[in-house]
């Protein structure tokens, strides 16, 4: 994909097959002895909103750092439009816009001054830069606050300045780390609407990290990470379709009874269930019928029941065998120990 020609440009620059906006090739990273990413490989398509879903400690923060050229992976390669993030960081940096989770704007400067500074870092100047500043501020709805210091803006408005900052150089790939943090529901809706507009009108490829299932539902495709490994990849609908049918949950009196119930369900109905604490979770077509059969067969073993269409959380449980939130979330050594930003 990223075969280099003699001029040092990737193949796409001379009109061959275009390089993927983001391509991971066996990315591995360890912090000392702890493996944070384990041979991760996937490709993000042109002009899609791609979600990186995983609980804390799943490695998505590490991956975000590598993609934003702030860390060199210990193994494998991450390529952005054919350029290696570790080897040619400046070429990658010109192509990506980044919205960090932590605040990166200078609150003592005005919104316009922040954007002017950011533009300078990307080689923009003069009238062209002024025009870009007005454009991006207009897009995030802050044109009337351009000359206000960022410290006087609300939290949601500050996030919008961050977004404007990431877009000032018109990147073709936009990376956002937990973009909904600190946004109220209305602001979240606006953000997603805006990301869709970017995708549709300007063909921008968007990568979003999130630990929120409902956020991931907005994405065109989702990669689910668990303990540094890719456990699932596809559109939310595809992933849920893999589960097949409904998710039926039986609550037993306790964990032992749940294990017993699971065994009996397997013997009687041939359905493999997952035991999570005192519940048994079974994926089954026509869940409501199955539910009735089980309750009738073991009336005293079931405390309560539920049936639902599968969610992305069910996909996660299906792939990993454990719950999204009860994973023994290890503190991220790089983020936690050094106190270098929350992201």
């Amino acid at each position, binding site marked *: 994909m990223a075969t280099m020609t003699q001029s040092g440009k990737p193949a796409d620059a001379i009109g061959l097959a*275009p390089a993927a906006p983001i391509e991971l090739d066996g990315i591995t990273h360890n912090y000392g002895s702890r493996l944070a990413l384990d041979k991760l490989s996937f490709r993000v398509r042109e002009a899609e909103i791609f979600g990186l879903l995983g609980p804390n400690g799943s490695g998505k923060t590490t991956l975000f750092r590598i993609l934003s050229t*702030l860390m060199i992976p210990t193994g494998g390669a991450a390529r952005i439009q054919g350029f290696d993030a570790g080897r040619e960081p400046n*070429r990658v940096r010109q192509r990506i816009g980044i919205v*960090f989770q932590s605040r*990166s704007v200078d609150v003592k*400067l005005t919104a316009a001054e922040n954007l002017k500074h950011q533009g*300078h870092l990307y080689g923009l100047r003069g009238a062209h830069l002024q025009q870009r500043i007005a454009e991006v501020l207009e897009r995030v709805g802050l044109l009337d606050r351009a000359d206000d210091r960022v410290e006087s803006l609300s939290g949601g408005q500050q996030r919008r300045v961050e977004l404007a900052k990431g877009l000032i150089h018109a990147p073709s790939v936009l990376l956002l780390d937990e973009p909904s943090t600190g946004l109220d529901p209305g602001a979240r809706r606006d953000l997603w609407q805006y990301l869709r507009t970017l995708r549709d009108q300007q063909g921008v490829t968007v990568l979003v990290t999130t630990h929120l299932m409902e956020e991931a539902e907005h994405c065109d495709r989702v990669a689910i990470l668990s303990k540094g490994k890719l456990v699932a990849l596809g559109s939310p609908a595809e992933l849920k379709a893999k589960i097949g049918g409904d998710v039926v949950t039986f609550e037993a009196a306790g964990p032992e009874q749940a294990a017993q119930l699971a065994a009996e369900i397997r013997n009687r109905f041939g359905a493999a269930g997952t035991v999570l604490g005192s519940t048994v979770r079974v994926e089954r077509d026509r869940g409501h019928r199955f539910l009735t059969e089980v309750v009738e067969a073991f009336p005293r073993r079931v405390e309560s029941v539920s049936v639902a269409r599968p969610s992305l959380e069910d996909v996660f449980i299906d792939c990993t065998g454990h719950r999204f939130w009860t994973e023994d979330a290890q503190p991220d050594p790089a983020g936690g120990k050094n106190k270098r*930003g929350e992201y």
Partner: protein
Amino acid sequence: MATVAAAAPQAKTASSPGIWTPAYSLWLREIVRFYRQKARVAGVIATPLLFWIVLGSGFAYSFHSSSGSGSYLAYFFPGSVVMIVLFTAIFSMMSLISDRNEGFLLSVLAAPVNRSAIVLGKVLGGATLAAIQGVIFLAFAPLVGDHPGAGAVLLSILAIVLISFELTALGFAIAWPMDSPQAFHAIVNLLLLPLWMLSGALFPADRASGWLAWLMRLNPLSYGVDALRNALFPAEHTLFPLDVNLGITAAFCVLVFAASWAIVNRRTHKPAA
């Protein structure tokens, strides 16, 4: 062939920003941030003035300079200028740590900017503030009976600029790997303040005991203080002549700047910020 060319993706050939535009932008930010924090402006001007008058007057009774005008306040004057410069350099490089912790530095590091532009912008920003304050303090020279001519003032300004740059670059090299202001303070107390105390700012090297005198000769800041003394009080006895002092100070500027540059350019698998 034409269709192949047309299929090429939109080449957003954002030109490389070079060194000067990003460096200028970072420099400007330092200046703007400074004057928007009024307490900083007041503190940095008032503190050395207070220090100079109180400490200088106090020492004047117990310590008499054998040479020149004989007034300790006059002897202490170049050292006071260097102290202002030191304070400002330290304060402005502390901002590097808050830039890192707040996340501002992340967006700079993730931009296609040559690392030397980051060092240059940040160091020049701090050095400008330090130098301006040092130069303003020169206006008090007549209070100690010194009336430098235009040439002496220009030489003094040159010395102040060089000292500002070397101290700010030194502060940069120290602050860059740090993530807590407390740790930086520890280094300030352990290294930077002794550097100033043993620079001839408080007492001359030729009066100090043997090992102390040698320490003072090894101290690069001694040459800056000495240069300033040469320029302001040409009659005073100093360790070295002006050109040697300025030369060594300039060489140290290059050295610490190169050190900062090397520290920033380290290739590592650890998080950049």
